[in-house]
């Protein structure tokens, strides 16, 4: 039992944080958010060529690094800490989905494409915003299959070379398709969002014809629900970084700010808030790395799906709360400047808000846990 980073993991953590401290500065993030591309393509290229983070989860035979989920969490935590505005999450999510698909030539082509630095986005959210139903249907016609409907909150969908699309077929089972956004019947719209650091798209399908070799998985209920759990864990890593940075910059601010002839960091009213923030941040971090270890154990066949899903529910509930609490308290600790555009705490606050409900609210996560605990056999 060694629930601590290995030397290699610690080194990855140090280099990731150093790289992003240099490249994903406040000015860089703000510039990326207001650019027409909604991110810095040169930075993404540098991430793919110099750091190779897009390859962390991709197996070595598909040109990836073949590392584990702890490593992925380490990097995404660092990304959250620096408000990284890049397709890293989208790419990791798509990789997770593809790795759950049955082996096929198409799957390996897509993994190789991801390893080469291309953006592939997963379109699975439905029209009403709920995550357990699907807004796209796959209908067989006499000659082909056509996709219709809408998927929302597709991360970096506007920059994707390919889209992975969850669709419900006529027998109401889920299927996973790969679609070229340029093909007929597919339209991708960049969606303006309150948090500009995690840009989203809406994808619409109007009888978009798909061929059989575009089908990545049929009977994909388990695949989709597992991918959702994995996506939550990826998001948790980001939230832990956001929570940590919100704590750090707020504490630094209170040390510099003087009132009543004292640094306001010396007031217990401020210190106790900071202590509560740290308690939540460290707790969320423990559950993040527990969840990351659980994914690795699940992939190795050592634990079952239930363990994976429970870990995701718990970590998501905890990290969502931690990030929003930490960023919210951070604004309060900043006082008046906390609500200005100039200070970064507002950017963390918005990112915390966006991720809090992105893949289900904390209360939904807790209700899922409650179902497991309370709705079994009566006592």
């Amino acid at each position, binding site marked *: *039992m*060694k*629930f*601590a*980073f*290995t030397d290699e*993991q610690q080194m990855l953590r140090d280099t990731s944080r150093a790289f992003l401290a240099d490249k994903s500065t406040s000015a860089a993030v703000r510039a990326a958010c207001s650019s027409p591309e909604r991110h810095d393509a040169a930075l993404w290229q540098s991430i793919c060529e110099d750091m190779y983070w897009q390859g962390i989860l991709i197996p070595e035979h598909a040109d990836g690094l073949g590392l584990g989920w*702890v490593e992925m969490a380490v990097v995404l935590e660092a990304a959250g800490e620096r408000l990284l505005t890049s397709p890293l999450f989208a790419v990791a999510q798509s990789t997770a989905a593809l790795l759950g698909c049955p082996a096929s030539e198409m799957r390996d082509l897509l993994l190789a494409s991801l390893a080469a630095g291309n953006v592939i986005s997963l379109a699975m959210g439905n029209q009403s915003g709920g995550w357990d139903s699907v807004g796209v249907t796959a209908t067989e016609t006499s000659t082909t299959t056509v996709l219709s409907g809408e998927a929302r909150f597709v991360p970096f969908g506007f920059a994707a070379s390919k889209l992975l699309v969850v669709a419900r077929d006529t027998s109401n089972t889920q299927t996973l398709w790969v679609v070229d956004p340029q093909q007929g019947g597919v339209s991708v719209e960049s969606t303006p969002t309150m948090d500009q650091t995690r840009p989203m798209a809406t994808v619409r399908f109007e009888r978009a014809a798909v061929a059989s070799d575009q089908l990545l998985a049929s009977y994909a209920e388990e695949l989709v629900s597992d991918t959702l759990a994995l996506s939550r864990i990826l998001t948790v890593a980001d939230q832990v970084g956001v929570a940590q940075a919100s*704590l750090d910059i707020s*504490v630094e601010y*209170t*040390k510099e700010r003087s009132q009543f002839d*004292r*640094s306001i*960091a*010396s*007031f*217990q009213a*401020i*210190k*106790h808030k*900071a*202590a*509560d923030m*740290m*308690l939540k941040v*460290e*707790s969320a971090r*423990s*559950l993040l*790395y*527990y969840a*990351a*270890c659980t994914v690795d*154990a699940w992939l190795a066949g*050592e634990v079952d799906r239930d363990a994976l899903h429970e870990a995701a529910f*718990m970590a998501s*509930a*905890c990290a969502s709360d931690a990030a929003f609490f930490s960023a919210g308290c951070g604004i309060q600790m900043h006082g008046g400047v906390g609500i200005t555009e100039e200070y970064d705490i507002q950017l963390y606050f918005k990112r915390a808000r966006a991720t809090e409900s992105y893949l289900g609210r904390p*209360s939904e*996560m*807790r*209700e899922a*846990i*409650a179902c497991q*605990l*309370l*709705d079994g056999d*009566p*006592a």
Partner: protein
Amino acid sequence: MKLAFTAADEQFREEVADWLNDNLRDEFTDIRYRGGPGDEHRFVDERKAWERRLADGRWTCIGWPEAWGGRAASIEQQVIFHEEYARAGGPGRMGHIGDTLTGPTLLAFGSEHQKAKYLPPIRDGMAFWSQGYSEPGAGSDLAAIRTKAVQDEISGQWKITGQKVWTSLAHESDFVFVLARVDRDSSRHHGLGFFLVALDQPGVTIRPINQLTGTAEFNEVYFDDAVCDAEDIVGAPGDGWKVAMGLLGFERGVSTLGQQMLFQTELDEIIRIAKANGASRDPDIRQRIAEAHIGLKTMRYNSMRMLSGREDGSLSREAMIYKLYWSSWHRNLGKLAMDVLGPDAELIESGSYELNKLQSLFLFTRADTIYGGTNQIQRNLIAERALGMPKEPRGQGK
């Protein structure tokens, strides 16, 4: 990063479980699950006998070096022992303070004479210890200690005068370690001594403190020229603060997973009741039970990180949040228990004021956020030591 224990550790776990299964039975059946916090005053003689049974099996003081009768158990093995002990319903340990506080302190700071005199009886389950830190005027501000120790210039014997408070189980113990002022002109953490004092002597008076639960686990201990031999001061006169603070560092959190096992049985009981009485259909109760479950898991992985942390035993960030986390969690659990029970939570089964387990839990968990450093002190420590925020300017006082 790896969460599983090694095969050797799992074998150790089996050994512990088998021994407990073979021994925690017959005359010890009645004390299973008894004597924990809020129940520490119960079954004292039986629990002392149980300590001797543990000693026969070499299960006391397992973290001590083998030369002093321990097993030199690794952190992992100590964790496993506490887990299995709790799982088997092992009673609250009468020897806890001697095993985890007095022993490691003497091993680190004690003289050869002190080790030879005091360690074997602790190891053998024959001597029981309590701790004398807090005073009526020195609670959160421990350095405000006023109990004084005066040395006889000829015999070298120390005479101790003053009052300690919140001394748990003093009336059932043989010894107390006392932090007292050796230099009458000193202040704060300077000029203190760390004394090993026998409780059975004319200069010591022990008075129980009646609690809101109707029971009494804590005491006031009065010292009126209580004697302590010259060789029974640990370290030099004036080193008391250093010794006492070193002692706090010995609590590396190996018992935390065992503590969590007890918390789990409490939560399981609450879940069982909620399912039986329909409280499990209340959306608010559902959220809070899930939150409690997540909190307990969080504590587990916080502990795992803490135990996998620095080899030098220095406190990591996750160690600093531990007390604040568990005490708040446990207090919330006590309230959750009452809310799940609803109006029935009020009913007392017997004519006398004998509370049931959940009523005791509810009332006694109010102490959790106070003893061992209040939540407010914990937050100060986190802010100052982990986050580097400045100390509050000290009051000018007298």
